[in-house]
């Protein structure tokens, strides 16, 4: 670790808050121009890089198949996908820019030492569109850190930015708690890459009400949104709705924070999902799982107690990826209800009604098959099979918040926009903290990392060119 203590009294050209994918991409780009760069991360070295640690791929446009990608993914197709998942709730200029830049992101990030592999087992549907990091997000992060440190980027761990001095849209200095002391660090430019605020339960409660107490946070406990909050107090323009986020249904038994990928459940499409009242509430077979998985976090959040139960029977047990916790199982539906502490009679009725509504069809988990129900509300439109073969299984699920969308509004230079649409002089934002510019709602796998990589690079480049121009003049 390079920890240049003698520099503490000095100032850096560029201060980057947050050492995840976005922060590191910014650091590498800026450092390449010869400027001095400091990255501060509030986590310890192991937990560095926020949610990047838990990621596994990034969605980049590409014109041809590669060693690790099974086919082309054009800019237009990418844009269509983005429009579909966000229901048009995106800044078209910025998302088109991101998609165009994503093409060069892939070779660039490979040059920084990040290695890729073909799509992982159980994720075939992403094999064409998403590039998977060899060894996952932490391996990717390790490569970026190693490259950045070799270039001379300084990194401070366990260092938290607690205040920012901003005068008329101009960043002056930051107050940083490090080694138990508060220090003032001057920099000519600031890049905020400090993530969202999903781990700040109080903030989440302001947006969602008390139900946010029942949310689980899939990633880092460090994303408290303090830098975002400070920036908001100092007059930046925000974008996005505080309740919008990437949320999926994860195992209710997962730890409150940092459970990561292994608590996810891919079995919604194979069974029925009931709430605390033992009643169904949404079409489980609406679309292929990878296209629909991101709606289930919100769906469960809207249910009483913010909990739901995926119920399926024996033949489905091995149709999906295994997960960390074994399912709760019973030899009868009534016994299962007892174990789940659901009303027995209602659960039996729900399953009976569902079973009777299932129409014959030929089951195929890989396509939108013709197994559906008739006469139910809500219907199950695909993969509907009777739940009748003991043993019966259930997974309890809760909303697992991955990251929030409310953030700093930026322009195409990743430059922060202040109130009254004025551009900040020397402040930039990249990654989760500005994801709302692209994602008004909805999510498609791997977009978060693309936002971080693309806008991280832009922020690093723009911050550097702004300073370098200033020196020349």
């Amino acid at each position: 670790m390079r920890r240049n203590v003698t520099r503490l009294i000095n100032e850096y050209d560029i201060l980057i808050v947050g050492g995840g994918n976005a922060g590191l991409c910014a650091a590498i780009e800026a450092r390449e121009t010869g400027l001095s760069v400091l990255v501060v991360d509030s986590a310890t070295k192991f937990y560095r890089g926020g949610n990047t640690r838990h990621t596994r791929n990034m969605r980049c446009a590409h014109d041809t198949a590669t060693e690790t990608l099974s086919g082309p993914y054009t800019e237009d197709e990418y844009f269509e996908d983005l429009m579909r998942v966000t229901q048009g709730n995106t800044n078209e200029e910025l998302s088109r820019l991101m998609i165009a830049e994503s093409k060069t992101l892939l070779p660039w990030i490979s040059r920084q030492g990040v290695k890729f592999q073909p799509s992982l087992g159980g994720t075939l549907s992403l094999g064409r569109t998403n590039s998977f990091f060899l060894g996952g997000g932490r391996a990717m992060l390790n490569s970026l850190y190693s490259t950045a440190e070799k270039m001379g980027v300084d990194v401070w761990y366990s260092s938290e930015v607690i205040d920012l001095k901003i005068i008329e849209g101009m960043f002056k200095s930051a107050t940083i708690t490090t080694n138990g002391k508060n220090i003032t660090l001057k920099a000519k430019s600031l890049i905020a890459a400090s993530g969202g605020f999903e781990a700040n339960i109080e903030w989440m409660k302001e947006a969602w009400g008390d139900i946010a107490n029942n949310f689980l946070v899939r990633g880092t406990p460090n994303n408290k949104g303090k830098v975002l909050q400070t920036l908001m107090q100092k007059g930046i323009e925000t974008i996005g709705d505080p309740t919008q986020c990437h949320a999926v249904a994860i195992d209710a038994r997962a730890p409150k924070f940092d459970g990561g990928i292994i608590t996810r459940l891919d079995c919604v499409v194979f069974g029925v999902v009931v709430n605390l009242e033992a009643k169904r509430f949404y079409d489980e077979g609406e679309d292929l799982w990878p296209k629909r998985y991101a709606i289930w976090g919100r769906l469960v959040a809207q249910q009483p107690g913010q909990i739901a139960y995926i119920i399926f029977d024996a033949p489905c047990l091995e149709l999906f990826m295994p997960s960390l916790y074994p399912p709760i199982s019973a030899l009868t539906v009534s016994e299962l209800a007892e174990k789940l502490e659901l009303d027995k009679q209602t659960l039996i009725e729900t399953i009976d009604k569902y079973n009777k509504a299932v129409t014959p069809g030929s089951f195929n988990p890989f396509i939108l098959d013709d197994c559906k129900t008739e006469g139910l509300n809500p219907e199950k439109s695909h993969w509907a099979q009777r739940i009748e073969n003991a043993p019966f299984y259930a997974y309890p699920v809760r909303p697992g918040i991955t990251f929030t969308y409310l953030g700093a509004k930026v322009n195409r230079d990743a430059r922060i926009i202040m109130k009254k649409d004025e551009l900040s002089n020397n402040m930039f934002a990249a990654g989760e903290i500005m994801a709302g510019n692209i994602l008004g709602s909805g999510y498609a796998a791997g977009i978060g990392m693309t936002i971080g990589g693309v806008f991280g690079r832009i922020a690093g480049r723009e911050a550097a060119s702004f300073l370098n121009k200033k020196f020349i003049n």
Partner: protein
Amino acid sequence: MKVYIALYSKINQPTEHTSPALTEADRLMTICNSCRYCEGLCAVYPAMEMRRTFLDGDLNYLANLCHDCGACFIDCQFAPPHEFNVNVPKTFATVRSDTYQTYTWPSFLAPFFERNGLFIGVFSAFSVAIFIIIFVALKDMSALWSVQTGPNAFYRLMPHNLMVIIFGSVSVYVLLAIGMSIRKFWRDIDKNNKQIIKSDNLWRSIKDASTLRYLDGGGSSCYSGDNTNNDNRRLYHHFTFYGFILCFISTSVATFYHYSLNIVAPYEWYDLPVLIGTIGGIGLIVGPIGLLKSKLNRDLETQDKTRFGMDLAFLVMLFLTSFTGLILMFLRSSPAMGLLLAIHLGVVFSLFITIPYSKFMHGIYRFLALVRYAQERSKL
């Protein structure tokens, strides 16, 4: 219905394991199997993905398939201090070392693995002493100090036939012991299949083993401490392994010279046995030193420190075999030859007879695991 009920009992009763390390390995594989980020790093994770439950035999197989490059530890978002505490290299190192004991033949010798360093050390000293005693008994004290030169110089101290009888019977025993261990291991890791090994799978595993394909962390090479990689373990292992093979070939060529060509040792420096043996010997000096150095520099968090004695003993024995052999070659015309020959023979004797009870077995089991993996893959 029956099938489902069987599944039910599998899900509801966690698999019983015979050791805490195996229980931990099962816990880790359940975590890793629901993550799979490390799938591209080596053979372990694709093999894991072919399973949903992990019996002792499965875990012993996976642990021996692991080449201990450490990449999955440094890449893991759930490694300690994370509460899931995922440390596959360390757990597998423990399981792997335990397998050497589990499959020892005859099984009452299994405790040799418990304090392996001490056992090998004492046994080697004992072997050297025995050879010195034999030399003295066959001749007298002068056997150790008198200058012997010309053809048959070695055999004047110990008749060739006696050497052949001693080392021949050791070889027969060692081959039997290894064979029985192989049988036990294979039966455990291939419980259900019992299939014939196809030649292309065998060839594939020979290639994977001889290139140490899976010791490169998926292309980032081995990890040592503090996120740095490339401690050259693969290179040093090649030095060691091929050095050993060359020494073995040298001995075989010498045997051929002796019986078929009637050319009797000691050989001149330009004779094949000496040339091959010297090159091999240098490999067996450089390799073990390099491996020991990287072992000492490695991230201790991923190491099973309790087995250090076994690892050290094996490296030291390989080193000594070569070292005493090379010294013998250089000083064979001096009065020290007798003693040096006794020491060299004692070390070689000890190395060979302890093969089934030393870390030597790691190569055998790992190769078998690679064969099993090639078999499994070809079925996909």
